[in-house]
């Protein structure tokens, strides 16, 4: 039991559980399962972008990708326009979204490397370019996703939302990448001490490049899925994922100073964030109180979590 409590990800799961119990307690047990189904779908989106952000943050202080929202919007816009609501073009759209993501990641890394500027500023300035590209390409149209894709993204598989199944598979894969591959070990090593990692022969720049490109790829994929789920690409569709991707990573027990990361915590944190909003909605609070409480609870969780992580 104490070994379990020492896991960095356990707190986000406990927080999510507490909030769920709060909802179920308030409604008298009604709709407890329905809430979980909805939470799994929306948490899947949070987790997908947070996975990329987690690897980036783990590279060390100053590493944050602020271009995720713009990347999602651009990838979704391009994919929806290419597919033009035709079922047989779904794979083309998916490939386009992934390619856009890869390109965004490559541009971000090129800026970081060539201009030797902090990643925060590099991804911030590039996000302006991507956002503009999305606006220009989209021309204010809202193109629906192909029928089959929309059905898939809102459908269920094995009793849980099919999107959650997809993202669970991706999470499992990236969990293995983080803990079992040389690449994952190198990311952690760079985050813990870049100088030592370099002296130990870690190809620091190649790992950093791979990480930013992967983050872009996941953001592109997330944009594709969000657009498929919500009936098309919208120019502000990525906005909420800027803050939530960072919040999910940190609440999930990943060290914001880099060097320590875990995948299970992302799911706990994503479920927690969604359930928190649901709970405040269930209590019938207005938008103002909901925002204030969300902010205060995020800070409270960070404060509670900080006490135990100072002495690893």
């Amino acid at each position: 039991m104490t070994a379990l409590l020492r896991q960095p990800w356990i707190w986000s799961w406990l927080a999510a559980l507490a909030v769920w119990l709060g909802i179920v307690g308030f409604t008298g047990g009604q709709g407890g399962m329905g809430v979980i189904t909805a939470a799994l779908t929306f948490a899947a989106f949070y987790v997908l972008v947070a996975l990329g952000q987690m690897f980036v943050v783990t590279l060390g202080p100053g590493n944050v990708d602020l271009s995720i929202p713009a990347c999602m919007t651009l990838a979704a816009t391009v994919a929806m326009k290419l597919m033009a609501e035709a079922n047989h073009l779904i794979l083309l759209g998916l490939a386009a979204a992934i390619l856009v993501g890869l390109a965004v990641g490559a541009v971000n890394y090129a800026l970081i490397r060539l201009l030797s500027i902090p990643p925060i500023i590099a991804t911030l300035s590039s996000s302006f370019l991507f956002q503009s590209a999305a606006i220009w390409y989209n021309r204010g149209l809202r193109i629906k996703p192909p029928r089959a894709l929309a059905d898939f993204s809102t459908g269920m598989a094995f009793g849980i939302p099919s999107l959650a199944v997809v993202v669970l598979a991706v999470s499992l894969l990236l969990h293995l990448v983080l803990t079992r591959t040389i690449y994952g070990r190198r990311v952690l090593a760079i985050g813990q001490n870049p100088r030592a990692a370099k002296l130990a022969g870690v190809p620091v720049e190649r790992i950093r490049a791979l990480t930013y490109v992967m983050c872009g790829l996941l953001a592109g994929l997330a944009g594709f899925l969000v657009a498929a789920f919500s009936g098309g690409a919208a120019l502000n569709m990525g906005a909420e994922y800027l803050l939530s991707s960072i919040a999910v990573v940190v609440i999930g027990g990943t060290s914001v100073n880099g060097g320590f990361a875990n995948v299970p915590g992302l799911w706990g944190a994503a479920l927690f964030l969604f359930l928190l909003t649901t709970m405040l909605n269930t209590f019938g609070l207005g938008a103002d109180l909901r925002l204030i409480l969300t902010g205060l609870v995020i800070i409270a969780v960070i404060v509670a979590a900080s006490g135990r992580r100072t002495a690893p």
Partner: protein
Amino acid sequence: MNPQLLRSILPAASLAALLVAIFWLQPRTMSYFGLNLLLNLAVPIALATVAQMFLLCVNDLDLSIGAFVSLVACIAATWLNDTPLLGIAALAALVAAYAGMGALIELRQLPSIVVTLGMSFVWLGLAVMVLPTPGGKAPDWIRTLMTLKPAFVPFPIIASILIALVVHFGLMRSSYGAVLRGAGGNPRSVARAGWSMLRVKVTMFALAGLFGVLSGIALIGLTTSADANIALRYTLLSIAGVILGGGEFVGGRVSPIGAVIGAMTLTLAGSFLSFLRLNPDWQIGAQGAILIIVLALRVLISRAEAKA
């Protein structure tokens, strides 16, 4: 020309280049009223940029300043106008809240990105609570102040110079200012030298809160009414402004004069792009491009510096 000098005049040179380009495209702006209109909105942005600079100076980042300025604008357009005492008390409480945020970050060694991110929800929620629908009315004295028409030099220019000089002398020329900047360069050595890091952080956050309040007040003087989302883009603008002005991300290397110049450059960039009759779709993108170009120039200069 020696690279070090080049580096220090780069922010001012970018501003001058932009100004010349605007004059060339639209000669009518080269007048008292033209400059007034061009630079009006630079004042609140400059104040927000200075607020951001105080935090960057101690290696923190404020992702909530946009929401905070919006909240101040909402309070200024309602309480400060209807019941001035309550308004002043609320604004003072906000500065205190910023100081408290600094204390919390230092005491628990929290990442400022996450704390300010959480607070941005709180500020936004409070703003919606104070002013649920866009509206309100700016107090007359703020309106009068922001629309002053001094002789010869337009008000925004005087205000910008004043802001830059006050912060420059406070932070760059005073002895406690050196400690504050040193705390960004090497917190441990400043602490070993007997200075309280807690006091440093609280001071810096309180200053950031104060300038955030001033920014909101200046903004409401120009717009006359407020809404809860009025200044959300200030978060990114202020970070970009500090960097454009020659500030570094870590190490306490900041420049107040540069920050004000950076804010003015960003404001002018918007007007410049509309004078170019650029497709509005590319307006945001062009701001990003300007940012990237200036940073690229800085790298070239640094390379030359390393060679020299």
